[in-house]
């Protein structure tokens, strides 16, 4: 019990720390639109609502731009921006706020398995009656992962993206390499890059552990290509990572990359931002990542944003070269919101689903793939990563990530991937550990077949 106190204090400290960082970030961001902190003229009957987003620079910029654009046409509603940490700390904060009834009127959050863990029917307002949710308007990738019993509970926030390998195009040109379609081609590219010297074939940034899991997550399109019903069987405790060769491959790949010495020298301590810098500058040739991260690339790329491209995670079969796709996240309203505030929250979300709202979003974050509503169009001058991603989407070569097909994701995947990537355990052992990790999540969710 003494510990419980410590844990809480830990959360508070982390939160306080993040808030401090945010303050600093806010200062350096300088001229950005102020999100109306110190209340304006506040006429009688004005409604104030809060909009909660994660604290990534790009998200905060986008949210501020959306609030400003909304205010211009809706002066009677004041929206305050609130931020939360990303990752598991953020997940906890969202759950805690929901369970204590202190959630902001509108909040942005993931869909897929994380959305399911919020118990949407119990905690969120269904939004299927909203004009922007009319049939045919929203992409299936989004509605599938944001609905319960046919009712959609969220509105698209941002653009979709693919998960695969970010690569440096000038390095590929200089060494005369071709975009690989199979794992073997990819490894021979890595050999060529290693031989050329001076460039890290594969960037790993274990200083931010979440970045370690992409080789497993982005490989999922290949798993499904080989075992089409993997997600259903996996959810029902009938298929395992360790015993399904196509799924095991993700962990084995990490081991191969480590054993072959393909990682950058500082892989154990490098941070996510270092990874983005290295892939843009050409210090590294490949970076397993989600394309979504490139929305903040401009700030780090030193003008070389368009040197970075994206290709799908290479699998076993060149004829099935499919990109693992992530839907954009969602905007949600908690059930505790009522009356004027509920109207204001719905109004803001409706605005977010117009071209105007999407344009405002793009002021803060560069698009990383298509929008999930037909009401928003991408401009023509998008980044290379967004173009590469959209090409996969247009060709129909996208398959949703596992988190959209199954509610279970083991919480320790990132640590297990780090264990494999630093050579502490083998890929096979890593997959077994992950299967054990997944079991806890499935039991917590009370899924059938796991007790």
């Amino acid at each position, binding site marked *: 019990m003494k*510990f419980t106190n410590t844990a809480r204090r830990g959360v508070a400290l982390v939160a306080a720390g993040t808030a401090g960082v945010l303050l600093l970030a806010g200062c350096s961001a300088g001229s950005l639109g102020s999100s109306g902190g110190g209340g304006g003229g506040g006429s009688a009957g004005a409604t104030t609502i809060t909009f909660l987003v994660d604290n990534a620079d790009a998200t905060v910029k986008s949210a501020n731009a959306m609030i400003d654009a909304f205010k211009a046409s809706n002066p009677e509603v004041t929206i305050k921006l609130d931020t939360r940490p990303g990752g598991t700390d953020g997940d906890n904060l969202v759950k805690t706020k929901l369970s204590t009834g202190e959630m902001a009127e509108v909040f942005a959050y993931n869909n897929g398995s994380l959305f399911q863990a919020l118990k949407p029917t119990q905690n969120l307002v269904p939004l299927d009656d909203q004009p922007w949710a009319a049939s045919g308007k929203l992409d299936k990738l989004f509605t599938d992962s944001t609905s319960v019993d046919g009712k959609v509970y969220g509105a698209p926030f941002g653009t979709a993206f693919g998960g695969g390998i970010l690569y440096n195009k000038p390095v590929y040109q200089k060494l005369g390499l071709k975009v690989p379609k199979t794992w073997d081609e990819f490894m021979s590219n890595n050999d060529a890059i290693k031989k050329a010297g001076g460039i890290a074939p594969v960037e790993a940034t274990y200083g931010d552990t979440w970045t370690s899991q992409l080789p497993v997550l982005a490989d999922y399109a290949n798993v499904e290509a080989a075992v089409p019903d993997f997600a259903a069987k996996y959810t029902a405790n009938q298929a395992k990572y360790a015993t399904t060769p196509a799924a095991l491959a993700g962990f084995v790949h990490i081991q191969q990359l480590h054993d072959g010495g393909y990682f950058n020298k500082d892989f154990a*301590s490098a941070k996510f931002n270092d990874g983005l810098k290295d892939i843009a500058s050409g210090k590294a040739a490949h970076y397993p990542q989600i394309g979504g991260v490139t929305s903040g690339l401009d700030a780090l790329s030193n003008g070389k944003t368009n040197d970075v491209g994206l290709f799908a995670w290479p699998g076993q079969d060149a004829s099935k070269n499919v990109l693992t796709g992530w839907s954009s996240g969602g905007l949600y309203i908690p059930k505790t919101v009522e009356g004027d505030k509920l109207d204001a929250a719905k109004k803001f979300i409706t605005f977010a689903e117009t071209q105007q709202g999407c344009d405002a979003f793009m002021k803060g974050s560069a698009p990383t793939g298509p929008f999930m509503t037909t009401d928003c169009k991408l401009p023509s001058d998008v980044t290379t990563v967004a173009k590469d991603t959209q090409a996969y989407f247009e060709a129909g070569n996208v398959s949703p990530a596992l988190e959209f097909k199954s509610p279970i994701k083991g919480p320790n995947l990132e640590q297990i991937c780090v*264990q494999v990537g630093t050579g502490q355990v083998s890929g096979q052992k890593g997959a077994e550990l992950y299967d054990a990790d997944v079991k806890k999540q499935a*039991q917590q969710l009370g899924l059938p077949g796991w007790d």
Partner: protein
Amino acid sequence: MASTLSTADATRLAPAQGVRSGGKKRPGPYPYWFLIVPGIIYFLFFAVPTFSSFYYSFTRWDLFTSKWIGLENYRTFFQEQALVIGLRNTLIYAVMTSGLKVVIGMALALLLTSKIIARGYLRSVIFFPVLVSAIGVGLTFTVLMNPERGLINQMLGAVGINGPGWLTNPNLAIFSVGLVDVWKGVGLATVIYIAGLVSIPSEYYEAAQVDGAGRWAVFRNIMLPLARPATASVITLSLIGGLRSFDLIWSMTRGGPGFASDVIASVIYKQYQAGFYGLSTAGSVVLFVLVTIIVVPLTRWLNRGDVT
């Protein structure tokens, strides 16, 4: 808590030892109902959460609903791979930090009670790290210990030593964090020892001098045994702190790389983070029991010959 000796603990502990000799019980001058207000606060904020946590440790709990599952959480917790590492690391960490604090704290106290220049200044310098927040210390040392760009390895590099990955080498990480913990907490141990050494009556030294005892003999036969209450305090406080240590480890390695520097507290916290609230509560109960099993007999033993 990585600041294994908190000042509050120390001050609370010190008078308690003096009081013990009193012996006789007399009714206090104040009526018992004075206790009602603190009693209610204690009940609401300590007793209720403690006992409800025992209950929740037997359930699968997601903050919204809970389901009774008996001992399942404990079974899962003990099968956790990180727990085996965590148990080992917790013991290494607690023994290492409290051991070093005793030795270094005693040495510094000897130095700082002798007649040296700028004694008052040095005493405050030694104590200063205790006052800094553990998270701040953790973040600072994470930067200093960065294998490529950190100041420590750059300095080692300047004299031709290829410094290790202090926090990125799985075999080294827990020891690196432990050393930082000692750096941060040794000030308090020193202060306790200074108090212990200063309170030794000077007659003993004089008698020893008359008998012709050397410095080592004085230390071995007078200072060490008479500073025993101080040693007991330092060991108890830093061992409890070490067993429960969390914030320094979390801010420096988050239990990584992989699970290599996990301790029980961080394993529990990760379960909580993952939303396994019942499981993490069960872990807290395990930690509570473990600390009790180790610390209660140890304190008894350390204080057995406590004649003041």
